[in-house]
């Protein structure tokens, strides 16, 4: 079956010739009309639209946005904050930067609508430090929006006021984790907070109720406020509504970003039809479907079970190519849709070396608060990099696994899971490659192989 057509909702104007990131261009394309419409409605109605839409967060966890908004403590009398998570630091993910650079007003409109719906008077956009240009573009866009009375005091004469400020990170991945982000925004080290009690919806920024949403999620909210929750829920598949942006990188002919209704495209269609298949003379070996912490899939493995289609339970028997790209299907086969970052590896890649690269990332980025995560991520890096650069032993795979197995469930934040899943899944699926690495490394490498660590 050929791949379906892309449906660009969030990326409608990305890379469009002549489309610029200033407010005039945005207004010419119908910009801020949804905001004008929305501030005439009751905030509860807007929250209801988001609930009906089934929108799931695009930052990684896929948590229903309407449910998240429903958890906000509105009785405390404290101000409610909204934070835009623009940290975009999960390896393999590169969608939010395009939105902020090329269509910043889409994000600002979505943010203000979300603030209005939740009675938020102050929002912050937490953008990663390595995006100085993005921060400048957003600041300029906010100033433009303020000059037109879309942001700031008494928005569009409604009596409702809301300010947005841009806050820059400084190169730490853990600032993407929402409670680490909040600590960072408070001017501290980004050490994540323990939940309970520190659920952002109750005890977030300055111990006030706080909503943290990803950039793309808030753009989706703008679209939902426009078309309505019911219409939005018809896009994609039940429980996986709306479009998803896939960021494809690594060994395909046409890496890039592609937006499709969720669940309507399979991994095989995405990689072969949309991305042009493997590089000449190579074959696909493995793929990480949702950012570097998602569990890896090996081409050739099969997944069997029962799943719900409509009201019925039907059998499925999928190869990697057959898996529909949505949260639930990817979850069913033991991995996750995460942030939409699809990293592809072909037959030139040695899995021990690829894992050593990933492990170096996680050990660099652990915040260091929890012993299992700090020490575990460090030892996984030491062992895998020793295998590559020093002596490898047949028992190293088992050793790595034993370290990885002792981390998840024993840490303050989900980084513990994130850093152990690559090791666990690489070793489970490429056991032989780990057991035989000491032999394999004596052989010449494929000419096209790149150094990975």
């Amino acid at each position, binding site marked *: 079956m050929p791949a379906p057509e892309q449906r660009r909702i969030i990326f409608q104007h990305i890379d469009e010739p002549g489309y610029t990131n200033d407010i005039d261009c945005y207004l010419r394309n119908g910009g801020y009309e949804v905001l004008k419409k929305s501030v005439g409605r009751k905030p509860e109605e807007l929250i209801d639209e988001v609930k009906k839409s089934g929108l799931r967060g695009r930052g990684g966890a896929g948590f229903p946005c309407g449910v998240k908004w429903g958890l906000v403590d509105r009785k405390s009398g404290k101000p409610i904050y909204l934070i835009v998570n623009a940290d*975009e*630091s*999960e*390896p*393999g*993910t*590169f969608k*939010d*930067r395009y939105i902020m650079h090329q269509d910043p007003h889409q994000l600002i409109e979505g943010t203000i609508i979300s603030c209005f719906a939740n009675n938020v008077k*102050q929002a912050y956009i937490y953008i*990663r*430090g*390595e*995006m*100085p*240009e993005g921060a400048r573009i957003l600041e300029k866009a906010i100033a433009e929006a303020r000059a037109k009375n879309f942001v700031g005091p008494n928005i569009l004469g409604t009596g409702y006021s809301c300010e947005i*400020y841009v*806050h*820059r*990170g*400084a*190169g*730490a*991945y853990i600032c993407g984790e929402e409670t680490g982000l909040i600590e*960072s*925004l*408070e*001017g*501290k*080290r*980004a050490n994540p907070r323990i939940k309970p009690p520190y659920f952002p919806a109750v005890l977030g920024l*300055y111990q006030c109720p706080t909503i943290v949403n990803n950039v793309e999620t808030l753009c989706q909210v703008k679209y939902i406020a426009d078309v309505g929750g019911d219409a939005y829920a018809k896009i994609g598949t039940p429980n996986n509504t709306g479009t998803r942006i896939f*960021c*494809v*990188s*690594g*060994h395909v002919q046409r*890496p*890039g*970003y592609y937006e499709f209704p969720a669940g309507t495209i399979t991994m095989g269609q995405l990689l072969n039809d949309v991305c042009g298949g493997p590089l000449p003379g190579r074959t696909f070996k493995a793929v990480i479907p949702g950012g*570097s912490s998602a569990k890896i899939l090996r081409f050739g493995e099969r997944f069997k079970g029962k799943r719900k289609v409509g009201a019925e339970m039907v059998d499925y028997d999928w190869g990697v190519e057959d898996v529909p790209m949505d949260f639930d299907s990817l979850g069913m086969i033991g991995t996750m849709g995460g942030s939409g*970052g699809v*990293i592809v*590896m072909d037959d030139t*890649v040695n899995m021990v070396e*690829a894992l050593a*690269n*990933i492990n*170096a*990332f996680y050990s*660099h*980025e652990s*915040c260091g608060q929890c012993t299992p995560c700090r020490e575990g991520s460090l030892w996984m890096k030491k062992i895998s990099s020793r295998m590559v650069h020093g002596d490898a032993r047949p028992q190293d795979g088992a050793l790595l696994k034993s370290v990885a197995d002792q981390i998840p469930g024993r840490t303050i934040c989900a980084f513990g899971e994130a850093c152990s899943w690559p090791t666990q899944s690489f070793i489970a699926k490429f056991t032989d490659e780990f057991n035989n690495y000491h032999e394999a490394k004596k052989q010449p490498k494929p000419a096209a192989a*790149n*150094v*990975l*660590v």
Partner: protein
Amino acid sequence: MNLKPETFQRIDEVITHYPVKRSATLPLLHLIQEDVGHISEEAITWIAQKLELQPINVLEVVTFYPMFRRAPIGRRHIKVCRTLSCALSGGYKTCDTFEKEFCTHRGEISPDGEVTVEFVECLASCGTAPVVMIDEILHEKVDVTKAKQLSAQIKAEAAARK
């Protein structure tokens, strides 16, 4: 603290963005590092005073975040992405090329003082790997040839300045 007048202005402005002064720690560190080039001992005490904190509160932030540095670096900062998608596309070769072109090693200032080459983690442009940030500009698909071109450009600019 010796800073440009506009830096002082921006510092005072940014503090007003937050209901709690301490939140301005990262913004102040960015502004001072952009002005001076690195974060000195003096800057740490100055920020602490400005935000009514203890110097340790600022120091612990400086040491946590990779982008803040305690010492000067070369005139240009070349950050090469090290993470998986870039490595799969030859990021390590890109980094080696910059090191060779400027006779330097990762993390050190080149002998001519022109550059500091460094590995950094995923720059969120994995689809156009390998990527490199030179100062504040992102360069995409930087293979060996392009790394040599970028190096030549930096050298030409350095020669023009002299």
